[in-house]
């Protein structure tokens, strides 16, 4: 092919266009439109656990379950706005009592119909302590959730399911009214419950799921049955094959007949395969390939059109001030460190545009986002130096703790260099061998200085970026931030039935973070993806997974 002159290539692509088939994959997975069946291959990775919706909180399994399951709510891949999927309506007069009506005709892959009890039973099972589901905390707002948890062992101080069985097996807040209606009651007002219901953990489970008696539902988890546009037909160590579900009645049917997730251990290999048109889709582009837009040169069709894309995802990176470091308590010091950061320069030079400078604590992809909450996030080295000297400077070495296994050393060093240059502070990066070690150091409050905090949203709401991280005593409140006014605003917002008014209250709460600076917002993350020449259009969701129903072939 290399020897063909440019003129000949022109002729060849013209001929292809004329015949209405511009795909030039040239690989075995190019079934082509002649046979009627279309298929594509996607980079996959080995799921951490068996494919059970409530036990999957990582991308490898999440990618597959995204296509296999349907939920009450579907997140629009363009703006991540929640749209009703299986739900006909979700209504609540007081943000605490919800009535959910289901659309009729939705079918599981085994032919049974999706009914109200499939939701209620699945949620009760997922929340039940003894089943130790990773996503069980998603059901926490529902009334009676605490009764389903295992008792705390007095000696170890941890939940122990063998000695202290949960008090109840079902949550009192869930009631089946009829086949297509059920009600949800939350413990406290939760105005954004509807937004949360699109998460995979809230997927309904068919009767065959409850019939599976194997430990941890491993049989079901190998070939899970959902109500999504694709059904899983094989699941091996090297690939997972999905086929279009013929009886799917929803609005988001797939356009490709067969989707194969090929397991790659190394994203570099997958990237190279997409460049060579041996693989159709990869959701990751190695950071070093972003240099000088190398990947954009690699990923172009023969006619010069791009076959890559970038999607802003619901991820924000911050640096949290260690609560045990007394030198970092003053607001002036915190503002100085934040102002001395040239976020623009780092996102351009270190991340090659794969990050966007943050202007607040909430990702722009979510409902309720408002730019500019962080006033100290504007680069101003002169003012930073003034404030830094006013605060008395930092004695000793200021450290930034990051996990060494996640590609964080580069930006942390760049941040250190900027602080050295702009403030004259002695700064060093402390890289832990892996993520677990970093988390351990943070959880035990052993680290001084600042540490990295990344937050990927669970559901696209401004609330998810504030309550779990900055409310007093929250599970991910690594900086021990506590502010009464902030907590009250969050409470008021949760009780507010009007979503717009609720969002305004959340935005007001975010402005308090701007005054108190519990952490330094750094940048919002985006995902880079590449696809082969035979794909015409593909959309990535704000959760970094592909929306299979939006894939269009040439």
């Amino acid at each position: 092919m290399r020897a063909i002159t440019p003129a000949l290539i022109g002729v060849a692509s013209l001929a292809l266009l004329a015949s209405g088939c511009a795909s030039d994959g040239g690989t075995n997975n190019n079934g082509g439109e002649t046979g009627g069946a279309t298929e594509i291959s996607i980079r996959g990775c080995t799921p951490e656990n068996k494919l059970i919706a409530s036990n999957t909180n990582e991308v490898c399994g999440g990618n597959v379950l995204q296509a296999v399951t349907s939920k009450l709510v579907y997140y629009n891949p363009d703006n991540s706005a929640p749209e009703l999927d299986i739900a006909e309506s979700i209504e609540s007069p007081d943000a605490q009592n919800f009535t959910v009506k289901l659309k009729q005709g939705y079918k599981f892959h085994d032919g049974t119909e999706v009914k109200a009890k499939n939701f209620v039973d699945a949620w009760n099972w997922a929340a039940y302590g003894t089943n130790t589901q990773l996503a069980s905390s998603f059901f926490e707002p529902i009334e009676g959730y605490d009764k389903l948890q295992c008792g705390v062992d007095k000696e170890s101080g941890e939940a122990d399911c063998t000695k202290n069985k949960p008090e109840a097996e079902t949550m009192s807040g869930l009631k089946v009214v009829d086949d297509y209606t059920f009600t949800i009651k939350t413990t406290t007002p939760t105005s954004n419950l509807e937004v949360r219901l699109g998460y995979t953990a809230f997927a309904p489970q068919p009767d065959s799921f409850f019939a599976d008696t194997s430990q941890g539902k491993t049989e079901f988890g190998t070939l899970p049955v959902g109500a999504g546009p694709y059904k899983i037909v094989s699941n091996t160590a090297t690939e997972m094959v999905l086929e279009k579900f013929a009886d799917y009645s929803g609005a988001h049917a797939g356009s490709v007949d067969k989707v194969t997730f090929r397991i790659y251990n190394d994203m570099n290999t997958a990237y190279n395969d997409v460049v060579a048109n041996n693989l159709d889709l990869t959701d990751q582009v190695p950071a070093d390939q972003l240099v000088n837009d190398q990947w954009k040169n690699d990923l172009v069709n023969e006619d010069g059109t791009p076959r890559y894309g970038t999607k802003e995802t619901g991820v924000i990176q911050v640096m949290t001030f260690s609560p045990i470091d007394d030198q970092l308590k003053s607001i002036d010091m915190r503002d100085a460190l934040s102002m001395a950061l040239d976020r623009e320069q780092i996102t351009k030079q270190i991340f090659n545009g794969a990050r966007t400078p943050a202007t607040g604590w909430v990702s722009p992809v979510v409902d309720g986002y408002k730019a500019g909450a962080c006033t100290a996030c504007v680069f101003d080295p002169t003012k930073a130096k003034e404030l830094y000297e006013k605060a008395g400077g930092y004695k000793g070495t200021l450290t930034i703790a990051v996990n060494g296994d996640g590609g964080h050393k580069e930006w942390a060093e760049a941040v250190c260099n900027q602080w050295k240059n702009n403030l004259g502070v002695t700064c060093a990066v402390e890289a832990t061998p892996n993520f677990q070690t970093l988390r351990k150091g943070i959880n035990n409050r052993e680290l001084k200085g600042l540490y990295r905090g990344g937050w990927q949203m669970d559901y696209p709401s401004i609330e998810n970026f504030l309550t779990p991280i900055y409310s007093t005593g929250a599970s991910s409140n690594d900086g021990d931030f506590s502010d009464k006014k902030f907590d009250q605003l969050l409470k008021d917002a949760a009780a507010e039935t009007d979503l717009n008014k609720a969002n305004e209250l959340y935005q007001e709460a975010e402005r308090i973070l701007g005054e108190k600076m519990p952490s330094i917002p750094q940048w919002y993350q985006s995902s880079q993806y590449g696809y082969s020449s035979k794909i015409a259009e593909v959309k990535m969701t704000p959760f970094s997974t592909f929306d299979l129903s939006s894939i269009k072939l040439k």
Partner: protein
Amino acid sequence: MTDLTDMNKESESQARIADAMTAPSLGIEEPQPTIPADALEDPAPQPVPDLQTVSEERSLMQDAWITMRSRPLFWISAALIFVFLLMAAFPQLFVFSGRTPDWSDLDKARMGPDSVAIFGYDLQGQDIYVRTIYGARASILVGVCTALGAAVIGVVLGTLGGFIGRFLDTLLSRTADVFFAIPLLLGGILIMYTFRTTAESPYFVVVFKVVMALSVLGWPNVYRLMRSSVMQVKPSEYVMAAKALGANPLRIIGSHIIPNAIAPVIVVSTIDLGSYIATEATLSYLGIGLQAPAISWGIAISDASAIGYVRNAPHMLLFPSLFLSLTVLAFIMMGEVVRDAMDPKLR
């Protein structure tokens, strides 16, 4: 194996002792000093003149020096080593731009060479030339200290094992076997992972840890050589003579055994020095050897070696690698030359 009692039996003849006293240790030919006839008849001979052994040892070195200085390879490697040692001790002598290794300008990240930064800029916009010059210290320190450390442990234990023998020898040799079975790199990873350094650790502690890790794994090599060399030297007549004349074991070891058995150790240590530098770079490359803010070629290579960087900014990888290769080459060449000079049998 001969022990002291055997030795006493053997040393019945005074004449033999006198002969032995003049025996050249490593085949070096030198006019034998004449022994006065009355010395032979004297039942209590005068103490062995130390001068003789010392002069022989010196002549071994002299002989080696004469062989070496005639070889161009020696001068090339010596010049390289001199430059690198100077670089390690006084890096500022080589930096003319006035930039420190901490200097950075992120806007220049990954840019190619310009008139100031003749090697270009790295990922953080730091001057690669300056960083490469300052990186010599870590590599040379690790190489030299590890070679010395391994040599000291190996020589001490090897001499004890070879000289005392019996149970101690067995114990030491089996211990050495255990350490010998652990591959240098694998063991290094294990030790460095167990004793991790943090960002606040002082520079020399970080370097010292790497040195310790590599020394602990490198000594069996030296131990084995030293032990066999000592066992070879021990039955020599001049050692017997010293014993017969009542020299205490420490003196025998210090003045007779070690000077005559050390040559192979010098050779092997010089060659190993190069490989220790390479291993340090590998450990740093894996992210567990030296760590930033320490500057080392291994770290620089590690940071620059992703394929996308190699395609777009190959200079980031080229210069630290080149310096590393040159240093390792210089020490290994030097080791070869020394070996040829000191141990003609291996030539």
